[in-house]
């Protein structure tokens, strides 16, 4: 599996992914990020969470970091700024279970930068997600139970497609 994953990420400098989760960064999410970066040293994962993961504060290791949005969702100005700064060095934005305004804002910012957005299937979409049919703005919808391998494969395909377009 490791060798296969190597072929997905672009060569050269590490490719940074942004994973956005509305709540706490769970243990399983951190494990998935660690597995992905262990399998292929060209991935980096920045997890943007609604609150701190248990027992963790900032960097999990040099290539998996956790960031907690300092602003409340009501503070649209600092929220947009924080998200924009976190998205800036990333190649892909992945929305995990996110139907929040910060997810919608991240989607908007990412697409205005030309970045592909991936989402984990929200199951029964609600709120903005459903009202605005945001699924259509997403490059790929991953099933909830997708493996790290499958996820990396999707990322690789999207980045390859983007390079072709460029």
């Amino acid at each position, binding site marked *: 599996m490791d060798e296969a994953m190597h072929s997905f990420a672009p060569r050269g400098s590490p490719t940074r992914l942004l994973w956005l989760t509305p709540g706490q960064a769970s243990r399983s999410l951190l494990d998935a990020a660690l597995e992905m970066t262990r399998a292929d040293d060209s991935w980096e994962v920045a997890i943007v969470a609604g609150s701190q993961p248990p027992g963790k504060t900032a960097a999990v290791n040099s290539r998996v970091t956790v960031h907690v949005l300092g602003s409340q969702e*009501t503070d*649209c100005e600092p929220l947009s*700024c924080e*998200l924009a700064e976190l998205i800036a060095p990333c190649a892909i934005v992945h929305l995990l279970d996110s139907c929040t305004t910060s997810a919608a*804002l991240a989607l908007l910012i990412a697409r*205005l*930068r030309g970045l592909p957005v991936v989402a984990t299937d929200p199951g029964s979409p609600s709120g903005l997600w459903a009202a605005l049919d*945001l699924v259509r*703005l997403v490059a790929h919808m991953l099933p909830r139970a997708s493996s790290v391998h499958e996820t990396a494969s999707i990322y690789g395909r999207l980045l390859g497609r983007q390079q072709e*377009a460029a």
Partner: protein
Amino acid sequence: MKILVVSNLYPPDLMGGYELGCRQVADALIEEGHDVQVLTAVPRLPVPPLPHVLRAFHLTDVYTPQLQEDLPPLARVLRHADACWVRAFNVQVLLEHLGEFRPDVVYLWNLVGLGGLGLLGCLHHQGSPWLWHLMDKTPRDLCAVPWVDGDGLGRTVADFLTGRFLACSRRLVEEIERHVPLLPDAVTLLPNWVTGPAQPRRRWYNGGHLRIATAAGHLCREKGIDLLIQATGLLRHKGHDDFTLTLFGRTDELFPRLVQEEGLQHHVEFAGLLGQEELARRYAGCDVFAFPTWPREPFGFAPLEAAAQGCVPLITDDCGIGEWLVHGVHCLKTPRTAEAFASVLADILTGRIALAPLARRAAAVVAEEFHLRHLLPRIEAALRQASTRRRTAFGPPEEAYHLAILGEKLSGCLVQKLVAC
């Protein structure tokens, strides 16, 4: 070049110099053989149709104070969001026009009232090159968040301000950059201009009755109209009686009342809002154009138009046009107080300042350096340079519209939460 001009208003529907300047440049570009289309808002009052002008945008009027005054906070902030942030309807209008006209470059003017950030985001998404002519702090206005004195939205938006800019003064650029970082080397300074020929001048001032003029679309405190009336009151107190002050533009009750209070009824005349040609003719009969405007005046067309007719600008010493004219050579500069303006006017009346040589030099320099026919090649060069920055769209036009809808709804949700807090 195929040039799509985008402006919130377009004459005869206008607020002031920004829109007039837009029309003058559009007309001049058409005369030079460019294929120019203007996309602007549905007019606030009926206007005659023009073949190259499509009035299709929806304008959120934030310029009429009477429409704002009694609004509750939520309605006022939502109005701001509509005017400055995202208006999906207008994004769709722009997309349709981009598709039909296929311009080489989009030439942006004042975008307040149209959901300007949405239009900029759309152009960025579509990879359309643009040049933005700045005669006001429009980027900063678009990024303002009510009740928040931060630069967060400005820094977010800066990422898609990847076009080029023409700005009428360095002071204006600095004012914008305090809140919205612009790309280095993206800004070219270009002064405002005059159009048309100089009117025949009846006389050059050499003592005697001094004719003072001032003008603004809307005579207001920011333009220093109250200071100017007070200055003429001080002149009289100093014993100078041989002058008249003519104010051109719309006025409210405040200034005629001030004239009464100062006892200046025989010295001050309100001449109303005149057309450009008539105004030029009237300037040719005046000696000094007093412009005690506020320091954040980006430029101001009026003093330049007066100078073109040999009417010497007497201006605040730190306003935008002051960057372009030399004190004691083409104009007079003084601090923005009634006393300082009165003192300079008294020096003219007593002959301590010789006005005629200044007037001749001012008229000559404006004709040589500030006429639109001399500046147009620089505008064309900037448009050409901007047009080379086209890149592949990030997605189809439908996606740009979809993102605009998302942006509009999102700003609405966030504003409601902001107000609720």
